[in-house]
């Protein structure tokens, strides 16, 4: 009993301490919170992403002494991909002068979108979250560069179309049965009508991620010509394995950009040979920026990566790319405001005016890493392009050039969705763009 009391005492002392001494950031740094999920069922993807994110900023600090001389402080907060914990992390870190949040989970993104205009901290959900947030007029504080789920889907469909035509074909859509997987369905349905193909949908419950045989039996029954997957975490390797089991042709099976990482296919190995996936960030370490990361961070033992092999893999590079865009936005903001130490509002301006041209990407050591991205007041998405990569049994290989989305079709749908989001929120903050 004595022990209990003492423990309780210690805990309460520590607790009071934590309230009394919030972490105060020095005035001359840029504070960048990192909501990570190194735990939980999706940790396999969250870990390399968080590493890439942290390592890029570490490299900038190390190599350049920060952005225009101001060091970046990255603080991780573990969300386990859980909305409650995500909100808790947000509340815990926003007071430290956070410049932007990359929430990573759709649930956390949805929770933070309405908070962004109030706290004046932009939300940067890189290619995930709410697709409609691409509309800058309606979502001044939210960004989804380089593209949105909806546009990505259109790019994938274009790829299918260019490989034997899509008209009259049957496309199977297997997805994680949560908001994330359900989100692209309106676009899929609309484009099916427009491009003349048939759709069959196969939802996979979160609890059934590793128990997909029914879905794949249904796939076998429906006999689609192509399969598109909106999967995540443990769902992906299981799906590829099940596809192999029913002998679905792997080169007709395309994952979205969260279903095509090394951690997804390593457990599958040989059986997954030929599997395709969309991506928008380069694979490998042959880019200048990555070489610098290895030189300045990883080799010095300052990275959290479990092994050096992780550097350059799909999700590591995506985390790094997330940091690249934020870093670029910071420097744009610094230039526009003339301030060295910026705040969330400046950051929003920087994100909105981002312009990553091919030339700029080369300067950053990222030539051919991704397509150019240009934002504007109304375009918070950039309608960027993707490429398709293929699994060769042990590694990913990029097999296509950049494929542009069908923005002309998708953009009106995005606008409609944005209108709908705003419609039941009378005091929603919008902005006018000329």
């Amino acid at each position: 009993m004595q022990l209990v009391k003492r423990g309780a005492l210690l805990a309460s002392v520590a607790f009071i301490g934590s309230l009394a001494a919030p972490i105060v950031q020095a005035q001359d740094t840029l504070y960048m919170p990192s909501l990570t999920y190194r735990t939980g069922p999706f940790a396999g993807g969250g870990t390399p992403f968080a590493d890439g994110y942290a390592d890029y900023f570490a490299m900038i600090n190390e190599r350049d002494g920060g952005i225009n001389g101001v060091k970046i402080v990255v603080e991780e907060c573990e969300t386990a991909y859980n909305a409650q914990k995500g909100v808790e992390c947000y509340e815990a870190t926003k007071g430290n002068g956070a410049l932007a949040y990359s929430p990573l989970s759709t649930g956390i993104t949805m929770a933070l979108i309405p908070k962004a205009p109030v706290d004046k901290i932009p939300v940067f959900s890189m290619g995930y979250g709410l697709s409609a947030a691409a509309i800058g007029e309606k979502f001044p504080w939210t960004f989804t560069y380089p593209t949105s789920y909806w546009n990505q889907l259109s790019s994938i469909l274009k790829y299918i179309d260019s490989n034997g035509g899509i008209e009259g074909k049957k496309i199977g859509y297997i997805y994680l049965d949560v908001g994330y997987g359900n989100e692209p369905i309106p676009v899929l349905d609309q484009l099916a009508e427009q491009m003349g193909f048939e759709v069959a949908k196969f939802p996979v419950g979160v609890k059934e991620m590793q128990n997909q045989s029914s879905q794949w039996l249904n796939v076998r029954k429906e006999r689609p010509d192509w399969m598109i997957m909106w999967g995540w975490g443990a769902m992906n390797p299981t799906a590829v394995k099940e596809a192999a089991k029913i002998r679905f042709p792997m080169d007709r099976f395309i994952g979205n950009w969260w279903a095509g990482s090394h951690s997804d296919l390593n457990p599958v190995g040989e059986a997954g040979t030929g599997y395709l996936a969309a991506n928008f960030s380069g694979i490998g370490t042959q880019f200048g920026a990555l070489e610098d990361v290895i030189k300045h961070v990883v080799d010095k033992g300052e990275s959290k990566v479990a092994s050096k092999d992780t550097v350059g893999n799909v999700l590591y590079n995506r985390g790094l790319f997330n940091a690249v865009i934020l870093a670029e936005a910071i420097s744009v903001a610094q230039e526009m405001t003339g301030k060295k130490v910026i705040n969330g509002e400046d950051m929003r301006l920087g994100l909105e005016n981002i312009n990553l041209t091919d030339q700029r990407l080369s300067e950053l050591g990222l030539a051919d890493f991704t397509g150019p991205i240009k934002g504007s007041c109304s375009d918070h998405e950039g309608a960027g392009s993707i490429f398709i990569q293929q699994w060769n049994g042990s590694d990913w290989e990029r097999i296509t050039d950049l494929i542009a989305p069908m923005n002309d079709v998708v953009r009106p749908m995005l606008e409609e969705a944005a209108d709908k989001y705003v419609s039941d929120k009378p005091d929603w903050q919008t902005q006018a763009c000329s």
Partner: protein
Amino acid sequence: MFYREAGQYKTSYAADQALLPLAQDRYGIAIVLFTAFVLIPFFGTSFFLVSIMIPFLIYSLAAVGLNILTGYAGQLSLGTGAFMGVGAYACYKLTTYFPDVNIIVHILLSGVFSALVGVVFGLPSLRIKGLYLAITTLAAQFFLEWCFLRIRWLYNYNDSGAIEVPNRDWFGITVTGAEASPVARYFLILTVVAVMTLIAANVLRGRIGRGWMMIRDMDIAAELMGIRPLRAKLSAFAFSSYYCGVAGALMVFCWLGSAEVESFDINHSFLILFMVIIGGMGSLTGCFLGAAFIHVLPVVMRAVPSMLGWDILASTVEHITQIVIGLLIIFFLIVEPHGFARLWQVAKEKLRTWPFPYAT
């Protein structure tokens, strides 16, 4: 010595039956309420309010709900998360259909819907007891989760599948949505929780609550005393689910601001059950103690390493937190299976007999 009832004579049954017959308890509650209503909003930081007090109060309310069912009526339930979800989605639909009605009305009404659902899933309790019943409540949990996803009407056909909370006023102060200040939200929740806890205490000490406890302790004897098991069990399910539903509505409207299915998953059911068991089954005080322990401990544990300047991966901390909570749960179950509430009682008895440790 310090906690002495000697000299406090009751001259009427009414006084003897009061909620807090002892003066010390009345002072204690007064201090707690003063702290909650005055000191905390005045001195608490925004982080303290939003990440500690608000979730703590909401979880406490849900724990009160579950405790009514499990601790007082003896029906083990693993469906709390889903019942909270029913409240949240009901509240969301109510605000869409009746945007002009005061949000407080919606929050309180939303509990009615989860009470109805609770009654439906409580029906098996008439034939099934104990662990078997617990597993059937899992059916409620998983079936409702599926409904939250598949019935798109529930989230207004939103593409993201999430429900978002609009800003709503109460007497001119925004109390829900992103624009609501932490203090306003805190006051709203605190008021609801305080009033509902008082109501629970009243019901529990009266005819209805006694009926539940009779069913819990000895259902056959209860029936032979004229308690109708059907009515008693279902009313417990309804009452409990009402509390869970309101807690769910508050969780989404005053804390998270948006939610999708995963906010009401099975882990929440476990979390609330932990709070009830660690706090003490059959004790309202225990609900609050349990909620404080289970919610606050991880928050504190996460803060400790960075405070001490240790460079530990967030994930490592998370894993260690998980292990520690698991061990603590087992430890407490071994040391005091009746939870914090009993520890508190023992402490009070000690204080009463102080300085004579062996008097009983």
